[in-house]
């Protein structure tokens, strides 16, 4: 059963940013084309993510290059165009929210305008907060207000710089559904900076991985995260494919949910989503086991027939193995020794074993 492509992919070009900036130790030198939807900028701290979004917002000035959003040229060093921040119509959600402490939530929200105010207040659940002061809000509430404030100035692009980084896991879980709703309900393209793979996997349609100020890899999130090239960039523990599945059945007695995707069927613990709903799931590369023959007598529930598309040795003892399951890409990481002993080769038909508990709830998004 084929799954429809998730979100808008390869749609109209919304943002072109091609900039160079020298700042002391490292230089930023990128050329990124972001389509509609959520483009995640991923990278370690110091990789240039914040410099990049600040350049889009006009808070820092690149040395050379060009930034175009939709039809509007925000910056063009050759044509000496450099729109000041107030004229850029960029909604910016900062990691530390940056709410004005001397204003009520209501005045914070309408500081830049009141575009679509009722709807924004509704989708972000801000009604009960309107008359409160920022000092009395929790971290998650602050970020919701900051997001609402950015949306109400009717931005043509939304920048989110690690909006969840300062929150603990339970606050993140509380605010992520709002972000997902926003992504699905607005047509504003979103640039989402993060260093958390599970956030990226859950929200993004396009992924750009920055490394030392340069684009290391970019493309649709499923492709990038399942590419063996990405393993050294994300680290062996965080690399892993993202696939879109459909809720196909429930095994109430065993408390399992059956998810269908182009490569077969997966059973996941718990009662996830609604019947027929699309769910993204992330399968960390280190939780995928490879077998030459269909295994028997094993406790793992999910065994998928796959084809090896790529084998990429890393710097350490590991080997990243790209796998094709139906129309989807998976990623496995095995030791070099196992890969040699199993005589793995591109084009081979083998089996991928995925433990049902491998995907944590934070990795499952609608």
């Amino acid at each position: 059963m084929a799954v429809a492509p998730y979100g808008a992919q390869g749609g109209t070009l919304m943002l072109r940013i091609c900039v160079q900036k020298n700042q002391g130790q490292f230089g930023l030198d990128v050329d990124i084309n972001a389509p509609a939807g959520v483009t995640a900028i991923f990278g370690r701290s110091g990789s240039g993510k914040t410099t990049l979004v600040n350049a889009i917002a006009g808070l820092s000035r690149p040395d050379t290059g060009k930034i175009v959003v939709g039809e509007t040229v925000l910056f063009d060093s050759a044509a000496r165009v450099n729109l000041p921040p107030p004229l850029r119509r960029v909604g910016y959600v900062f990691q530390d929210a940056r709410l004005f402490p001397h204003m009520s939530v209501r005045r914070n929200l309408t500081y830049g305008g009141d575009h679509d105010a009722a709807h924004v207040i509704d989708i972000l659940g801000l009604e009960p907060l309107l008359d409160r002061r920022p000092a009395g809000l929790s971290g998650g509430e602050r970020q919701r207000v900051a997001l609402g404030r950015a949306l109400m100035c009717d931005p043509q692009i939304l920048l989110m710089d690690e909006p969840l980084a300062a929150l603990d896991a339970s606050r993140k879980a509380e605010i992520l559904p709002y972000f997902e709703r926003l992504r699905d309900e607005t047509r504003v393209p979103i640039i989402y900076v993060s260093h958390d793979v599970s956030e990226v996997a859950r929200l993004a349609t396009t992924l750009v991985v920055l490394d030392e100020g340069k684009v290391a890899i970019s493309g649709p999130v499923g492709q990038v995260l399942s590419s063996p090239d990405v393993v050294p960039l994300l680290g062996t523990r965080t690399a892993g494919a993202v696939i879109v599945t459909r809720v196909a059945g429930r095994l109430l007695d065993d408390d399992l949910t059956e998810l269908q995707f182009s490569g077969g069927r997966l059973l996941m613990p718990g009662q996830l989503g609604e019947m027929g709903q699309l769910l993204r799931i992330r399968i960390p590369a280190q939780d995928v086991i490879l077998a030459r023959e269909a295994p028997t007598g094993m406790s793992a529930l999910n065994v998928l027939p796959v084809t090896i598309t790529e084998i990429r040795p890393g710097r350490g003892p590991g080997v990243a193995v790209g796998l094709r399951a139906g129309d989807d890409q998976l990623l496995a990481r095995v030791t070099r020794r196992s890969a040699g002993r199993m005589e793995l080769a591109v084009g081979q038909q083998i089996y991928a074993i995925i433990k049902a508990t491998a995907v944590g709830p934070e990795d499952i998004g609608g």
Partner: protein
Amino acid sequence: MTQLLGPSEWAAIMLSLRVAVVAVICALPLAIGVAYLLARKRFFGRQLLNGIVHLPLVLPPVVTGYLLLVTFGKQGPIGSFLEQVFGISLGFRWTGAALAAAVMAFPLMVRAIRLGIEAVDPGLEGAAATLGASRTRVFLTVTLPLILPSILAGAVLGFAKALGEFGATITFVAAIPGQTQTIPSAIYGLLQVPGSEPAVVGLVTVAIILAMGALLISEWLSHRMARRVGR
């Protein structure tokens, strides 16, 4: 109290209040501007500006008074210009006393306000800019409300300094009763005359009451404002 204070003492008190209030009101906008420049901008001559602003704090007040006399006096370059063009005369007038008080209070006001501006997160101003606010609107709606408590602190400090200013004032405009004789110069003058202790005690008491009153009012206001800005 009223028996202690004669008409000339009352004149000195009213003059001191007028001089201090006018000095603070006129110097405040300039102090906010200079404090903002020193706190936020990097420009050529910043250290020089900083030094000039602080000079009255470290110079002997008599020297400051003398410098005022040679520049703002009738024969001075700025003094004669003001007199000819605007008809404003500063020498030996209460306006001159206000100028001396303003110059002496200026560094204290700038220091207090600058501390407040440095405590405002520039990120908030950046956020306001991305929300479409012009520089002026950012300053008026974000920076200014957040530094109000420190502006107030600077104003009170400046007011107290202006009330107590003696050396520069007496050098620049002397101590003409009813014209330029403020509380400190009145006290000093009375001390030269035998048998005037009651009037001295009266003026000293008034000086203490004014200083304490200003301090209490500013504490109360800044407490209210601090609550309003959510700190």
